[in-house]
């Protein structure tokens, strides 16, 4: 076996330039795959974290059916009990409660239908980035009553600025008419038209009073230490809910259930990435196939002599496979090392794609994106290259078995 290995090694370096080119092609494909996969995983992490911090949080406790129907009668009637459960889980870093009602909002001249949300001014800042999104005026403070934060587009539509009054008119939880005048305290901008046009925030206690909520809320939002902790925390919360909610009216939803669109767009991106990778690998595979086919053609005479001397076709195949495996392994190892280095560099320094900051802001993403090197991104990329190139090399190696010694020796 060791003689075979020596022969294989020497055979590879009979054409150093060709061997190097092939190894370089494999290495290059691996580098690309490692980097691109890390980039994709990194951007998903950034996207999820940004989306979670924007509004939804990692987990929410809601009344069963509220997420689908948005019916204001489906409430979490005792938020304090839910808070106690959340505070008992160390992996929950912050939590807050919110309530929502769809109402008419009217300035002197215009009226629109919007979602009025009651938020806890202090706790909200621990869970979401709302406070940083105030573009004009100020954020709410504890003890505020008839103060409101209005989306930038809504303020423009209503033609109101900081300090102006708007009327809210909707329906309370008991069916009564809820009406109040609030003063615009601040104007926020998410960069997402949907939110900037349709949302008004008022302090939660004031909301509960105006909309006759009797202390109830619609969602209790929790933030966890990391994405990986979410499933564990979800189980813990669900177990805790069982103890306080005998009628089983409450559910705990994670960010995937709250934002199914996010997971779908990630899946779509992953699939389109995969298609690109497969095309890349096929191109590389063809270059390897080419190398090994050339080997067979130019060494037909040599193989004929080997066979005439009594070498079995099986041993020849093994020799060729050893050659190809050695080259592929060399290529992938170099690729993994170089790829990881490149990825690691950008993981530390980040990448700014010029001209995309506007688009990224729309999705609430930071300007600078970071790839995320992980065992998965390294193994998947390199593994794919390894398997496909080895399979390609199989064809020429098996072709050798069909050679006849006499004819082969006559070949040019």
């Amino acid at each position, binding site marked *: 076996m060791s003689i075979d290995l020596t022969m294989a090694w020497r055979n590879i370096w009979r054409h150093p330039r060709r061997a190097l080119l092939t190894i370089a092609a494999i290495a290059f494909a691996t580098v690309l795959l490692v980097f691109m996969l890390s980039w994709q995983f990194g951007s998903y992490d950034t996207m999820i974290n940004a989306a979670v911090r924007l509004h939804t949080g990692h987990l929410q406790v809601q009344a069963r059916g509220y997420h689908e129907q948005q019916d204001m*009668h489906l409430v979490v009637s005792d938020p304090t009990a839910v808070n106690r459960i959340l505070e008992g889980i160390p992996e929950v870093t912050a939590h807050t409660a919110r309530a929502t009602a*769809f109402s*008419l909002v*009217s300035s002197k001249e*215009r*009226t*629109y*239908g919007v979602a009025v949300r009651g938020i806890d001014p202090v706790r909200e800042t621990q869970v979401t980035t709302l406070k940083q999104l105030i573009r004009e005026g100020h954020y709410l403070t504890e003890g505020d009553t008839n103060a409101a934060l209005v989306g930038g587009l809504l303020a423009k539509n209503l033609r109101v600025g900081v300090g102006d009054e708007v*009327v809210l*008119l909707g*329906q309370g939880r*008991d*069916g*009564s*008419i809820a*009406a*109040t*005048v609030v003063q615009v305290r601040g104007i926020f901008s998410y960069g997402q038209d949907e939110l900037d046009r349709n949302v008004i925030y008022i302090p939660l206690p004031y909301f509960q009073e105006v909309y006759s909520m009797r202390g109830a809320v619609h969602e209790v939002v929790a933030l966890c230490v990391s994405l990986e902790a979410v499933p564990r925390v979800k189980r813990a919360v669900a177990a805790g809910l069982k103890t306080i909610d005998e009628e089983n009216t409450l559910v705990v939803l994670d960010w995937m259930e709250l934002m199914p669109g996010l997971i779908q767009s990630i899946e779509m991106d992953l699939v389109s990435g995969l298609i690109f990778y497969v095309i890349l690998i096929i191109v590389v595979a063809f270059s390897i196939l080419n190398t090994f086919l050339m080997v067979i053609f130019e060494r037909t005479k040599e193989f004929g002599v080997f066979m005439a001397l009594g070498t079995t076709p099986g041993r020849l195949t093994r020799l060729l496979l050893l050659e190809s495996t050695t080259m592929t392994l060399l290529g992938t190892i170099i690729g993994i090392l170089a790829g990881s280095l490149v990825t690691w560099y950008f993981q530390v320094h980040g990448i700014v794609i010029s001209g995309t900051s506007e688009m990224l802001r729309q999705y609430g993403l930071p300007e600078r994106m970071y790839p995320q090197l992980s065992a998965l991104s390294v193994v998947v990329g390199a593994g794919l290259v390894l398997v496909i190139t080895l399979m390609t090399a199989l064809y020429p190696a098996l072709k050798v078995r069909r050679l006849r010694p006499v004819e082969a020796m006559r070949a040019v």
Partner: protein
Amino acid sequence: MITRALLVLGLLLFFFVGPGTSSKAQDAQAIVQASFDYWRGKASVATVEMVIHRPDWERPMTINAWTKGKSDSIFFITAPPKDKGNGTLKRGKEMWIYNPKVNRVIKIPPSMMSQAWMGSDFSNDDLAKSDSILDDYTHTLMATETHEGKTVYVIKLMPKPDAPVVWGMQRLKIREDHILLQEEFYDEDLTLVKAMTGSQIQMMGGRLFPKVWRMQKADVKDEYTELTYQELEFRDDLPDNLFTLSNLQNPRR
């Protein structure tokens, strides 16, 4: 010969079928028109109890209502005390609501017209466009039934091509004495969305009138809104200044 025969046949068809269908449509239109005039009268003053019923709660409200002509009306809530003084004014296809607590009049924007009125199963559109069944639809007489010994016309209303309506079809059941028994609302796929049914027909304001109206959504069992007329009086006229924004804000009652 053949062409001549065809020509005669064509003429015959034209004279028989042509005017025949249109007069049938006119019949249906006339039935709806007569019924509409009957239930609306020239002008009316009414006290109505509205009950919004949901599986886990129920909410009664008392409303004073004035209507005039085809499209003007004004309502004020008189009970429960928490909501007393809230008013709705409707002129033409436009609506305003008034809330005494904030002392403001708000015009309902077009985008909110399909929303529920005061949380009931009636939409703002149901109130604002109540006379659109005359102008925005073509009427066809589908069938006749009998109800308490009287003929009932079943009339199908299909929206005219450019009519600004949300329904794909409506079906009315009108008794021969002009009493509207049922109004069904269908969406564009012609599936039933909700239905309003009148019952307890009795003498009110000098004419036979269904005392109770129930608006029921088609897909949920235990959710409906019921209107019960406590008092109803038909008048020949009401002053125009009753249906104004200033009266909405400072009711002269």
